[in-house]
């Protein structure tokens, strides 16, 4: 974008303040704030309901101003019989291991495809591109996953579907292409080996794009329940999302356990659902500022350069 001439700014400011345009400006601000709030309010509801006493939910329904507050849902969530901590552990392992592997695989492939020394790079691009336009669907995917041993174990949550996306690889390739070749040549002349050029020169330079694709992958892993639905029967390997998806059975199991101790109060069914949702969103909320920064950056990198 060209630099603004010094006199331009006041002119634009004048546009905003002139007469009838004030109303338009007000409407624009009003609309933006309204939409932003609409995006936020459902999350507030979830958080508030998770702290609501079950009795007030049964009597008054979901409400932003509950009659009675309670943390019993969270107590139940972290009780020794709860499967939430276990699912948390499983999901964290899958996300961390998967994201690291996926990012490295994409970097390796993208780096090679961008490298002019590699004569088959165009053929290879085509090899990956074809898989983006044609996929055979669910049944082969299921059978192959099972055949290679990704069934009822942690690998089922890491490997199938999630560990490589050609789209992310092409993002890396396009990013590496923008780096001048002179860098590669001068490193070579200085005596750097292939390994060193790739991992100590190019890898650090690729941090912005790698952070972006790592986030794509991490969100994909964290929010995935499809792999669990398809490939997991053993409850010990339920991911967090899957547990949440099947929460009804978890609530039944937990309330059976606790009925002996506290017969008087009903199990916190609705609030338990919402409390589990809150802890599931937890890491995303915590990492959000970081996430947002790289997502916007990455969207602009990957965006059509029209």
């Amino acid at each position, binding site marked *: *974008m060209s630099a603004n001439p010094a006199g331009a700014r006041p002119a634009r400011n004048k*546009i905003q303040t002139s007469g009838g*345009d004030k109303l*338009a*400006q007000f409407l*624009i*601000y009003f609309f*933006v704030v309204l939409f*932003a*709030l*609409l*995006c936020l309010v*459902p*999350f507030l*509801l*979830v958080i508030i309901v998770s702290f609501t006493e079950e009795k007030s939910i049964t009597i008054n*329904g979901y*409400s932003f101003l509950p009659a009675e507050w309670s943390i019993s849902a969270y107590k139940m969530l972290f009780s020794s019989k709860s499967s939430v901590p276990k699912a948390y552990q499983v999901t964290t392992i899958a996300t961390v291991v998967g994201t690291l592997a996926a990012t490295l*695989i994409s970097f*390796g*492939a993208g*780096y*090679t*495809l961008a490298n*002019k020394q*590699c*004569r088959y790079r*165009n053929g290879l*691009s085509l090899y990956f591109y074809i898989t983006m*336009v*044609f*996929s*055979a*669907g*669910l*049944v082969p*995917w299921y059978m*192959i996953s099972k055949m*290679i041993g990704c069934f009822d174990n942690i690998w089922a949550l890491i490997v199938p579907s999630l560990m*490589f996306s050609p*789209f992310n690889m*092409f993002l890396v390739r*396009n990013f590496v292409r923008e780096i001048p070749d002179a860098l590669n040549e001068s490193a070579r002349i200085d005596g750097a080996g*292939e*390994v060193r050029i*790739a991992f100590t020169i190019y890898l650090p330079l690729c941090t912005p794009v790698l952070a972006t694709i790592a986030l794509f992958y991490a969100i994909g892993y964290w*929010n995935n*329940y*499809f792999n669990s639905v398809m490939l997991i029967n053993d409850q010990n390997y339920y991911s967090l999302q899957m547990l949440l*998806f099947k929460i009804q059975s978890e609530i039944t199991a937990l309330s059976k356990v606790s009925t002996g101790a506290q017969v008087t109060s009903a199990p916190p069914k*609705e609030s338990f659902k919402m409390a589990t949702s809150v802890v*599931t*969103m937890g890491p*995303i909320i915590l990492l*959000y500022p970081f*996430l947002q920064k790289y997502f916007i950056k990455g969207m*602009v990198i990957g965006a*059509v*350069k*029209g």
Partner: protein
Amino acid sequence: MRGSMRKPTAAAPRKHVNPFKELWRNKFLYILVLPAMIYTFVFSYMSLPYMAIAFEKFNYKTGIFSPFVGLKNFEYFFKSSWAWTITRNTLVINVLFLAVGTVCAVALAIVLNEVHAKRLLKTSQSFMLFPYFISWVIVSYMLQGILGTDNGLINNIITGMGGEKINFYADPNYWYPILLILNIWKTTGYNAIVYLAAITGIDEGLYEAAYIDGATRWKRIRYITLPLLMPTICILTLMSVGRIFYGDFGMMYAIIRDNSSLMPIAEVIDTYVYRTFKNTGDPSLSMAVGLYQSVVGFILVFTSNWIVRRHFPDGALF
């Protein structure tokens, strides 16, 4: 960006090379690309032979080499009422999402571009982007909290005013709008980013010249922003048109689940394939439906990519 795929670049004139020499000389590069190649081979290329199942009566002992039955599975599917239902649902839902979604995203980007208070812009954008990162499972519980029959927010308000409860989860008529609103809510903030980036790239000088010539805010949007945004809109829309035959399993299955009263409206090809596979345990029928989706989907994706390449050379990823 993609020119090199067609014609050899000046740096590497295409003459015949000994493949073994090439592999040996750049062995490190090929080792780097190998994991991705193996992964793609296993999950994509190896799945091709499995498509034969669609033409067989599948038996777990014989696998891909089960007895051949010709087009029987396809016949069964296309004669059932589901063929039309799931095709229509997938297309209607995707077209709704795409048309309304694009209009909303472009409108939001234009509106955001008019916001000059930096803090407000940043904060509101973070809120708008947030739903994008949340899983559909959580969204489905929020929705239950809002629409639920027994204690949902809307029904609370209705009964509070003395009205009669609406059983949303039993009446399919509400669900195209509900699904559309959910999709808009979840993706607009995200989709607007690309458009906003494109708008920011427009030369400021154009707006100044227009202002000096007396163009109002609306005219500046209508005659500068929108026309210059058109290529981006076209490219992104075409790319999505290619995906129009694929339903969003993650969304539909989390929200509709096994609720059979909503299926006439909300069952899409992807969920149907999954359900036939899980419920009947017969992969043949499921594979036949999957193949139908793959072939039509391929034609659509390929054509839309081809159009993008032809008309917007800079827009295609390849």
